[in-house]
Every structure is written in structure tokens, then in C-alpha cells.
């Protein structure tokens, strides 16, 4: 298949992983890194699992608590603080993103919430609501993935914005759709359901919006990126970059897109490379592979590309963030 050939032929980009990019306090251990993102000052935000997500016993109903924390580091990787400690909505990290005004957005796939945090570290807006209590045993997921015409999410994975501040949520693991909201959080529309036809998704693991407002959705299970216009009309799909578990589009006049073909968490012998491509789908090069050493990747879940050649890469499998400097 043409996609496979393009993947194999892609030129290798030289790179190095900066050792000790994040300096953790002695008592701080990152768990699975769902997301990493920088703000305009270069501060680094990491949304990671931590400790013990738990379901209580001896209560009127079983309640779920804990398991994820949001950390802030400065541009040199020095630990600054834990943000919104003990937040009700933090349980299983999906992603963290920073918008144009430096607000920090956390996506949690257990509590089904998208949480906007302002630059002071206070709550600015919420999408979705955590379930009051848990079913024990849990119910198997049902439905076609189209979801509700609302902010009722089912394992959301990512969030992005267009130039007008409209919000696009990849409601993409329990559901298989993209939900659009205006900048004030009012539901606008939703598109997609589970499937493999154009406009359908196996899942939506990552999402990005370009300067023109086009929406790029990583459709991991179908191993493609689907491109939509701002209203969800299907435009095209790129099937040459694997599962697209993490997507990032650079800012500026000549944007490039980084796409991770993340390895499955139970296999470090297949995949794991990151592609650099133009927005028209042309692959410019690739780097990395799955593994545990510095410079290898363990199930990358998010890439920050605020700086085109200095990336932050968050890994589920290796419980870490790597700072990757690409040779230019």
C-alpha cells in the first residue's frame, strides 16, 4: 500500500533527547504521562497519573477518586508547583493543552471532563461532568459512538481551538466523535460515529486545528488522520503515518505537523516513530522508534511543538517527558 511505502521511505531526521529535561523533586514520581504542553513563556505542564485511582467501599454508592495530577515546570525544566491539587476531575490523564491566551486545558478520560484553568491556576470553565458514582461491576460500553448533542463525553481524548476560540473536543475512546463548542462552551454540533467510512472513526485519540480552522483528527484504530473543515465536512484523509495517537501543528506562516505512530503499550518492537509532515499530508521526515532508552519512545500520547525543532514528548509507557531537539 502506498502509505506503507511512504512510511518506509521517509527520511530519518537527526535528533537528540536532552537528559534530565524535567527535574523532579525527590518525592515526585511521574506515572503514565497523558499530556505535556508549554505556554508562551515556555512553562511546561504535565498531566500524569499518580498513585492510586480508587473506588471507595463502605459508602452509599461506590465513588471514584484520585489517580492523576497536573504539574508545572519552568522553561528550564525546574519544578514549579502542582496545579489544582486534589481536583475532583483528575483521575485518568488523556491530554493537556495550552490555548492562545495561555489557559491550560486538561482532558480526563475517566471523569469525562475538559477542564480550563486560567493563568492564575484557577478554574475558568468546565465541559462535561464526572459521574456521581461508579457501577460495580462496570457496564460494558454501548452505542454507535455518535454521543449526545451536548458535552456529555465518554472517554474524551483531546481538545483544540480555532482562531475564533471555538472548542473542538475529541470525544474519542468511549465515543467516536468530535464535538464543537463556541468559546463560551455552548454546544454547537457534533460529528462522527464508530466506523471506517470517511467521517467515521475507530477512535479519535488526538486532534489539532490549523490557522484556517481545518480540523485534523487522529483516527488511531483506522490508522489515519482525517481532515475536516471548521464545520465538520470531510475533506481528506492521510493514511501514511500510522495510528496518529499524538498530533501537533506548529504556529506561523509555514506550519508543519508532527504525528506519532505510537507503539501499543504491550509491544516495543513495532512502531513508535514520529513523522514530520506538511499539512497537505506530504511526509518530510521521521525520527525515533519504540523502546525504553533515552531517545526511544514508549507509547507517545502527546507532542508539544510550540518550538518547531524543540519538542516535548509525553510517554505512557516510559512514565516520562522527553525534550527532543531536532537537527535542522
Amino acid at each position, binding site marked *: 500500500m502506498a502509505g506503507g511505502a511512504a512510511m518506509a521511505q521517509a527520511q530519518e531526521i537527526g535528533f537528540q533527547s536532552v537528559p534530565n529535561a524535567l527535574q523532579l523533586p525527590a518525592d515526585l514520581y511521574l506515572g*503514565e504521562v497523558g499530556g505535556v504542553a508549554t505556554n508562551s513563556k515556555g512553562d511546561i505542564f504535565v498531566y500524569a497519573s499518580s498513585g492510586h485511582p480508587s473506588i471507595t467501599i463502605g459508602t452509599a454508592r461506590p465513588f471514584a477518586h484520585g489517580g492523576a495530577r497536573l504539574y508545572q515546570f519552568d522553561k528550564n525544566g525546574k519544578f514549579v508547583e502542582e496545579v489544582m491539587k486534589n481536583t475532583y476531575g483528575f483521575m485518568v490523564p488523556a491530554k493537556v493543552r495550552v490555548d492562545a491566551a495561555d489557559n491550560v486545558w486538561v482532558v480526563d478520560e475517566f471523569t469525562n471532563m475538559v477542564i480550563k484553568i486560567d493563568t492564575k491556576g484557577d478554574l475558568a470553565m468546565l465541559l462535561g461532568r464526572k459521574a456521581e458514582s461508579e457501577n460495580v*461491576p462496570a457496564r460494558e460500553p454501548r452505542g454507535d459512538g455518535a454521543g449526545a448533542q451536548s458535552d456529555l463525553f465518554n472517554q474524551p481524548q483531546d481538545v483544540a481551538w480555532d482562531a475564533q476560540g471555538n472548542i473542538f473536543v475529541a470525544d474519542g475512546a468511549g465515543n467516536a466523535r468530535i464535538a464543537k463548542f463556541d468559546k463560551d462552551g455552548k454546544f454547537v454540533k457534533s460529528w462522527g460515529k464508530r466506523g471506517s467510512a470517511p467521517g467515521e472513526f475507530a477512535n479519535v485519540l488526538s486532534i489539532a486545528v490549523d490557522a484556517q480552522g481545518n480540523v485534523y483528527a487522529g483516527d488511531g484504530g483506522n490508522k489515519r488522520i482525517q481532515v475536516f473543515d471548521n464545520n465538520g465536512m470531510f475533506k481528506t484523509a492521510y493514511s501514511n503515518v500510522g495510528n496518529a495517537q499524538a498530533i501537533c501543528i506548529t504556529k506561523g506562516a509555514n506550519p508543519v505537523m508532527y504525528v506519532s505512530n505510537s507503539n501499543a503499550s504491550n509491544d516495543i518492537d513495532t512502531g513508535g516513530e514520529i513523522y514530520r509532515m506538511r499539512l497537505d499530508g506530504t511526509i518530510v521526515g521521521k525520527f525515533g522508534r519504540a523502546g525504553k532508552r533515552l531517545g526511544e519512545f514508549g507509547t507517545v500520547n502527546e507532542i508539544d511543538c510550540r518550538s518547531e525543532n524543540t519538542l516535548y514528548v509525553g510517554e505512557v509507557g516510559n*512514565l516520562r517527558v522527553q525534550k527532543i531537539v531536532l537537527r535542522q
Partner: protein
Amino acid sequence: MKRILTLLFVVAALPLMAQRKATIEGVPDIPFTTVPNFLKLPPGEHLGESVAVATNSKGHIFVYHRSANTRLFEFDQTGKFVREIGKDYIGFEFAHSVRVDKDDNIWTVDEGTNMITKFSPEGRILIVMGRRPPAVAGMLPAPPGPNKPAEKYVFCRPTDIGWDAQGNIFISDGYCNNRVVKYDKDGRFLAQAGSEKAGNALGQFNLPHSLQVDGQGNVWVADRSNFRYQVLDNNLKPIREITNLGVGWTVCISAGPHQYAFLSNSNPNGNTPGSWDITGEIYKAELDGTVLGRFGKPGKLAPNFQVVHMMDCRDPNGVITGEIESWRVQKFLLQPVKAGSTK
């Protein structure tokens, strides 16, 4: 992140409390004393089930224990508490083993999270193997039926870890796989013996519960529910079995040019009737299997044992034991035994 099945119910199926009297006879008792008040904890701190203990080259003692949360404590060579490592770390849920490699890195094996973690001597994470079952789907019952096929990079209640001189990693896995797996020093799969299925032929296992690698690169496995130890070569081909030392609960190989094996016929959890009469002793042996002596017996009070789960024997005359049911770590100073005193 695609999420699959997750937090399993802890089904109240206790492991089979099997016991077996050792068939070896005429083994001399090794005289010993114990170090009184060996580990000194800070006020307000206590050990839980002390399933795992290991020392580094400086004599520091690491105890990986089942407290309210599973925790990893470091003590200095005098038994004074130094620090806790891995506080609130996602890979800690239900301790099973801690071992220290030749470079003093600390490796934990957690059978609750199915994760094996390499910590630097400073306590930072260097390598993670396996993955905690994802929590996102909530609480799902463990599916009935046989064990799922063993995967290269997925553990099922792993039990122990060892290394050869090249740094290759050997893992006994475990309660719901029945295999020994070899990885290179970077954690890439190389080979396995056994599978998810239990078996009793050589090279098969039924609850491989403890593992150590000797100086020749041979792999010693406590094959607990088969009531034996197996010795495998470096490529995991079986060499021989040891069947006369009782249950085969845990194994330790001492350091230095002349290595000894310590093999524990631990008394079973639950102290079943009569168990104290026929189990609980630890054997000291040459690597060729010649048994040199034995020490210890079951009992609630020190210096007796309540289910020795792991031993450190870096110094073959200073064996440290971690026990399950007494929440206790003891240090035994053994009188040296010479080969030839028994067979």
C-alpha cells in the same frame, strides 16, 4: 489512549496453601544468633507484610512491604531508617520483590500493578517494564476461564527478578503466567521458558515464585506449586531440578567468588495444623546442590519465622529474611559451614 479491561476484582481465591516436608535427611543445624532490634523505624512508622528485602553494595537495606499502601523503605547498614523511595508512585500497589543489581540500582516487582521498575541508587526511575492495567473502564470482574496467552511485554502477577553479568534481565512471571522471561538490559524481549499454562515437566512451571541468577549465568527458579527448584541455563534451557527441599518458596544466591544458595521451605500462610512440625527451615547449599546445613523454624515470635517470603544473602553468613505474617525483617548471623560436613 485505547483502554482495555482494567481494575480487576480481587477475587478472594487465596493461593493454594500447599506444604511439603523436605525429604532430605541428616542435614546439620547451623548455629546462629540474630541481630536484636535490627531495623529502626522512625516514630509512627511500621512495616506491613515484609515480603521483600535486599541490600546494596554498601550494606543499605531496602524493604518493599505491604503497608496501608505498598512502600519502599531504605535503611543504612546499621539498620537506621534513611528514606522512602517511590512515595505515591503508580507502580506500587502490592509488593512482591525488591532486588539490587551490581550497579546498586533498585528493582521492584509489584504483583498488583504488573509493573517492574528500575530505580537509580538516587531513587529515580530508569526503566519501567509492564503496565498497570488501565483504570478507565472502572471495575470489571476478572474474566473466567484459563489464563490469557502470555505476551512478551505484559506480566501477570510477576514475582521476582535477576540479572546475569551482561545485564540481561530475568523475570519470574508469576501467579497467572507460569514462565520465566529473559530481556536484554534495555528491556527488549529475548526468550521465555514456560507459558501462561502451568506444567510440571522440566522447563515448565507452576507458580514460579522466586528467581536468582548465579555467577555462571544460570537461572534458579523456585517452582513453588511444583514443590521444587529448577536451574536453567542462560538461554532458559533446563539443567536440573531440586526436589528434596520441600515447597520451594524462595531462593537467594550469595555474592562473591564462592557462591552459596539459600533455599526456603517456608511454612504456609495460615499456619495449617501440623505445618510448624514439617516446614519453615532454610537450607544452605553449594551451587552443585550439595546441602551444607539448615536453620530456622516456624513460630510467631522472633527468631522464628512466619512465612519467609524473601532472603538477602549478599553475605552468606549474614542472611536477612523478610516474612509475610509477622510483618518482620530479621538478620541471622550464621556460623560458617564448610563443605563436606554433610551430603
